[in-house]
C-alpha cells in the first residue's frame, strides 16, 4: 500500500486550501444559505406568513402585558410620590388652634410639608366635588372637621405607617387616615401582573420554539433525500444544518416584525379611548410605546427564539437521518 495518504482526513486537510480561503468558503456558504433560505420561504408565501403570524401572536400577548405593567409601574411611582396622610382634627378645634397644630405637624420629624384645610375650606371642596351645594348649604352646622394633609419625607409604606402612629398621639388629632391600603393592593397587583407576564413569556416563548421547531421539522422531512445525498458525498452536519437555522431565524425575525406591527397597531387602536378616559379623570396619560430599545429587544428575542427552535428541531432530526 502506498504510504502517501490521499484518502484520509489528514490528506483532506492538506489538500484543502489555506485557512483564509476556507474562511471565505465558509462565509460564502453562509451568504448563499441566507439568501437561499429566504427564497425558499418566499416560494411558499402563505405558509410562511401563517407560521410568522403564529409566532407573532405568541409574542404579542406577553409583550402587551409587559407594556401594560410598565405603565402600571409608572403610575405606581407617581402615586407613591403623592402618598399622603390626612390628619383629621377633633371637632371642637377652632381655626387658630388648627393653625398651631398645623405648624407643630410641619415641624414633626419625617414630615416634608403640610397643608391645612379648615372646616370651611373642606366644606367648599366637598360641595364643589359633589355638586351638592344646595343640599349641603341647607345644613346648619358644618359637620366636617378641619384637616391637615401631611406629605411624608419617606413615601415607603412602613415609614408612612410609623409616621401615622406618631402623629396620632399629637394633641387635638382625632384620626390619621392613610390611603396606603389601595396603594399596596395596586403594588400586589403589579407584582402579580409581572409574574404573570414572566410566566406567559416563558410559555409563549416555548410556543414559538414549538411552532418554529415543527415547521423546520417538516422542512427537514421534505428535504430528506437531499440531506441523505449531501451527507453521502461528504457534507458535515454543520453544512446540512445551516439552511434550516437560517430559515428558523427568518421565521423568528418575520414573526417579531409582525408582532411589532400588531403592538403598534393595537396601541394606536387603544390610544384614543385611553386618552379620553384619562382626560375624564383630569389626567394626561398615554399608552407606553415599545420605543427603539424595546423594539430591538423584541426583534432580537424573536430571531433568537426562531434560531433556537430550528437548532433543536434540526439536531433532533439529523440524528435520525442516516444516508442509505
Amino acid at each position: 500500500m502506498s504510504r502517501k495518504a490521499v484518502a484520509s482526513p489528514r490528506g483532506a486537510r492538506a489538500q484543502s486550501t489555506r485557512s483564509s480561503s476556507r474562511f471565505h468558503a465558509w462565509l460564502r456558504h453562509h451568504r448563499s444559505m441566507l439568501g437561499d433560505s429566504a427564497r425558499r420561504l418566499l416560494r411558499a408565501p402563505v405558509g410562511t406568513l401563517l407560521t410568522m403570524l403564529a409566532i407573532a401572536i405568541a409574542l404579542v400577548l406577553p409583550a402587551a402585558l409587559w407594556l401594560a405593567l410598565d405603565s402600571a409601574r409608572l403610575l405606581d411611582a407617581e402615586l407613591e410620590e403623592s402618598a399622603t396622610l390626612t390628619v383629621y382634627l377633633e371637632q371642637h378645634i377652632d381655626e387658630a388652634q388648627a393653625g398651631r397644630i398645623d405648624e407643630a405637624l410641619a415641624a414633626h420629624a419625617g414630615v416634608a410639608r403640610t397643608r391645612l384645610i379648615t372646616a370651611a375650606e373642606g366644606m367648599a371642596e366637598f360641595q364643589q366635588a359633589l355638586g351638592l351645594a344646595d343640599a349641603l348649604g341647607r345644613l346648619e352646622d358644618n359637620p366636617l372637621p378641619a384637616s391637615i394633609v401631611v406629605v411624608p419625607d419617606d413615601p415607603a409604606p412602613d415609614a408612612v405607617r410609623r409616621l401615622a402612629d406618631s402623629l396620632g398621639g399629637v394633641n387635638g388629632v382625632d384620626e390619621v387616615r392613610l390611603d396606603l391600603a389601595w396603594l399596596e393592593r395596586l403594588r400586589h397587583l403589579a407584582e402579580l401582573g409581572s409574574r404573570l407576564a414572566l410566566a406567559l413569556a416563558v410559555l409563549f416563548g416555548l410556543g414559538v420554539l414549538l411552532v418554529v421547531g415543527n415547521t423546520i421539522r417538516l422542512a427537514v422531512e421534505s428535504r430528506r433525500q437531499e440531506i441523505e445525498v449531501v451527507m453521502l458525498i461528504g457534507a458535515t452536519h454543520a453544512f446540512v444544518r445551516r439552511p434550516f437555522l437560517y430559515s428558523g431565524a427568518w421565521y423568528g425575525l418575520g414573526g417579531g416584525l409582525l408582532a411589532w406591527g400588531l403592538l403598534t397597531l393595537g396601541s394606536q387602536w387603544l390610544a384614543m379611548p385611553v386618552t379620553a378616559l384619562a382626560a375624564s379623570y383630569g389626567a394626561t396619560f398615554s399608552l407606553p410605546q415599545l420605543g427603539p430599545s424595546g423594539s430591538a429587544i423584541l426583534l432580537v428575542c424573536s430571531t433568537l427564539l426562531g434560531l433556537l427552535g430550528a437548532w433543536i428541531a434540526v439536531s433532533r432530526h439529523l440524528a435520525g437521518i442516516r444516508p442509505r
Partner: protein
Amino acid sequence: MILFERVGKRYGGRFDALANLDFRVQRGEMVFLTGHSGAGKSSLLRLIMLLERPTRGRVLVAGHDIGRLHPSQVPFYRRQIGVVFQDHQLLHDRSIYHNVALPLEIRGADPRDVARRVRAALDKVGLLHREKALPIELSGGEQQRVGIARAVVNKPSLLLADEPTGNLDPQLSADIMALFEDFNRIGTTVMIASHDLALIARLRHRVLRLREGRLIGDEDAA
C-alpha cells in the same frame, strides 16, 4: 489502496452479511465485485464508504484504519471517495450543473474553480450541452452519466460504483463501463459492484466473487 483484514459484518446479532473477508486492492486497479443480490456487494461498499462499520476485522483505505475515524472526520473522508449509485441519487430540484457542482460546494471550492471543473466533468461524460437541464428531463443512461460526473468532479483517488448499469440496456452499459475504464486509465482506483457477468467477462479486469458474504473467487485480469 483498499485492504480488508478478516472483516465481518453481522446484522441484528445473527445474520452475517459479510464474513471473514481478506483482500487487497492496489492503487490504480480496476476491480469488479460480483455475486447474486444479497451476496454482500453493497454491504462491502458501504463499509468502504463508512455508511456501516464492520463488526469484526479492519478496513484500511490508503493505509488508514477507517474504523478509527471519529464521526466528525467521516465527512472529510467521504469527500475523498467518488461514489456512483444505481439509482443516481440526483437532486431533482436543481439543474445538472448544480448537481455536479454539489461536492465542490460542500468542500467550499472557489466559485470560478467550480465552473471550470463542473464543465470538465460534464464534458467527460458527454453532457456539457445539458448542463441547464433538470435530471427529470434526462434519460436513465444520461442520469447515470451525471451521477458519474458528480462522483469524479472532486478528482477522487478512489471511485466506487454500486450496480451503475443496473437498469440500462447493453449498449449504454458498455458506454458507462468504458467511462470507468477511462478514469482508471488516468490512475483512479475503481471498484464496481455488478451482477452483469457477461459484461464483466468482456472487460477483462480483476473480479472478486462473493457468495453469502464470503469471498469465493478472486480472479485476476485475464
